[in-house]
């Protein structure tokens, strides 16, 4: 057993392995870095160059294809205004609130479906119905229902984002190890204990996956709601700028929103890696016994 726990010896310069390996480890590491980062950088430069080219040659109307440099300039100007950040905050509020409510609904319904056949039978047909519904199109309905304020946007976000946590909770709760259930049964665990100690933790990786998607959807929902009818929020800024044919401003708002969203998703990822630290564990190989 001691052989299993011994740390792997670090290979340094002058190590015998260095002589054996045809390509030294350091060079290999360098090659890895190059092959990892060169392609996306190349793609980025290519895309920006293409946009610049389209803008300079004016193959498309200049008004809809501002040069990337102009957009960058506009973004710099936008960032210095409190205007951008105040409206961004409005959108984030709607998105985050929608995310919280939507996830709560999704997870609770998912748990209900996962543990109770009755709830599963009652809810499932509607789940399928709602899934196939173009929920984005509900935004005008919510505006009609709740007016031009933030609540209609929150509701749009809820409607769009509750689904991934719901379906992932259902799938996650069903994805248990049958031997683990047998073990719990042999220990005479109650239904609650089976849920609390086996099914729920087992479902967490899936649930968190659903939450990450829900976050994207919630912000999307808030912006769709604002595009429908709003006086504040990033969506309304985009709407106004587009109406004025200020495409550089439109792209600027979109990019700023993307950057902030990226930060939020990064945070979600960070939380995810800490809460469900066992996510990437290799599935144990199980030999199936026919009995």
């Amino acid at each position, binding site marked *: 057993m001691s052989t*299993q726990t011994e740390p792997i010896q670090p290979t340094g310069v002058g190590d015998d392995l260095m002589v054996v390996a045809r390509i030294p480890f350091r060079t290999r590491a360098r090659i890895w870095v190059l092959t990892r980062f060169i392609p996306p950088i190349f793609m980025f430069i290519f895309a920006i160059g293409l946009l610049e080219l389209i803008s300079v040659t004016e193959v498309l109307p200049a008004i809809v294809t501002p040069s990337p440099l102009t957009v960058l300039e506009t973004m710099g100007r936008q960032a210095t205004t409190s205007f951008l950040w105040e409206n961004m905050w409005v959108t984030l509020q709607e998105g985050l609130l929608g995310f919280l409510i939507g996830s709560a609904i999704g997870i609770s319904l998912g748990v209900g479906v996962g543990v109770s056949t009755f709830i599963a039978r009652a809810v499932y047909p509607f789940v399928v119905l709602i899934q196939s519904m173009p929920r984005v199109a509900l935004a005008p309905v919510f505006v009609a229902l709740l007016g031009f304020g933030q609540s209609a946007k929150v509701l749009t976000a809820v409607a769009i984002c509750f689904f991934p946590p719901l379906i992932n909770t259902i799938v996650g709760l069903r994805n248990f190890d049958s031997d*683990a259930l047998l*073990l719990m049964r*042999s220990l005479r665990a109650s239904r609650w204990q089976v849920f609390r100690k086996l099914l729920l933790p087992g479902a967490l990786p899936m649930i968190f996956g659903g939450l990450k998607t829900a976050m994207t959807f919630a912000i999307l929902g808030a912006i769709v709601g604002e595009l429908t009818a709003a006086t504040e929020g990033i969506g309304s800024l985009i709407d106004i700028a587009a109406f004025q044919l200020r495409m550089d401003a439109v792209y600027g708002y979109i990019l700023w929103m993307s950057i902030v969203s990226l930060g939020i998703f990064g945070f979600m990822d960070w939380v995810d890696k800490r809460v469900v630290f*066992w996510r990437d564990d290799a599935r144990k190989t199980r030999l199936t016994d026919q009995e």
Partner: protein
Amino acid sequence: MRREPERGVAGDVVEVRNVSKRFRKGDREFLALEGVDLRIREGEFVSLVGPSGCGKSTLLRMIGGLTPTTTGQVSVEGHVVDETHRDVALMFQAPTLFPWRTVLDNVLLPLEIDHRPTKDDVAKARALVSLVGLDEFVEHHPRELSGGMQQRVALSRVLVNDPRIMLLDEPFGALDEFTREALNVELADIVGRGKRTVVLVTHSVPEAVFLADRVVAMGTNPGRILGEIQVPFHRPREASLVRSSEFQDLTLEVRKLLGLE
């Protein structure tokens, strides 16, 4: 579990009487077990050995109250088994550890199901983890352990409840030859000390003989008991036992019972 007056020979912890089990697969019915009679004495180590489909795992689960019998009766400690009961602890081929729990918390699970673990419980779990040689890993998570180490944790978890009967379903079947042998020696040692009743299911004849006081050979179509052989070697048993001619002779006899020779 229903209370019933003691029956059978005194000292029999497990009594399987004329048990059969039918499974239905679609329209076809198939007989997993037929006419099985088995008595296991207190403190006895019994190996059930046989090919896939001989119903040995089914029989094991019946003793644990996890699978109902179609006909016949299983009694444990004089009581008819008709649901899961606290006298047994189960161990599977896969370690079946919970990846979100530390080694210690995995071992504590059976106690936790029963009551809020006390300081004594934690001390006991720690002692069991060190019994299987994993002191330094108490606070680690299963993913940081090799397959053999994970199965050691599973072994500690089986022992933590002080079960009257240990039911081991090919516990080391998924491990490599070396780890498997090392763990078998350890298991023989641990079991020998505790005077526990153990039922082991295995595909491996040498494993069955090395560990058991009695080897029960089982066959297929329908799943049934072909015969049994007493293993006279006293404990503790050393790894070198498998090289002795007596051991070789005994495995040969079991192989004959199984129709392999």
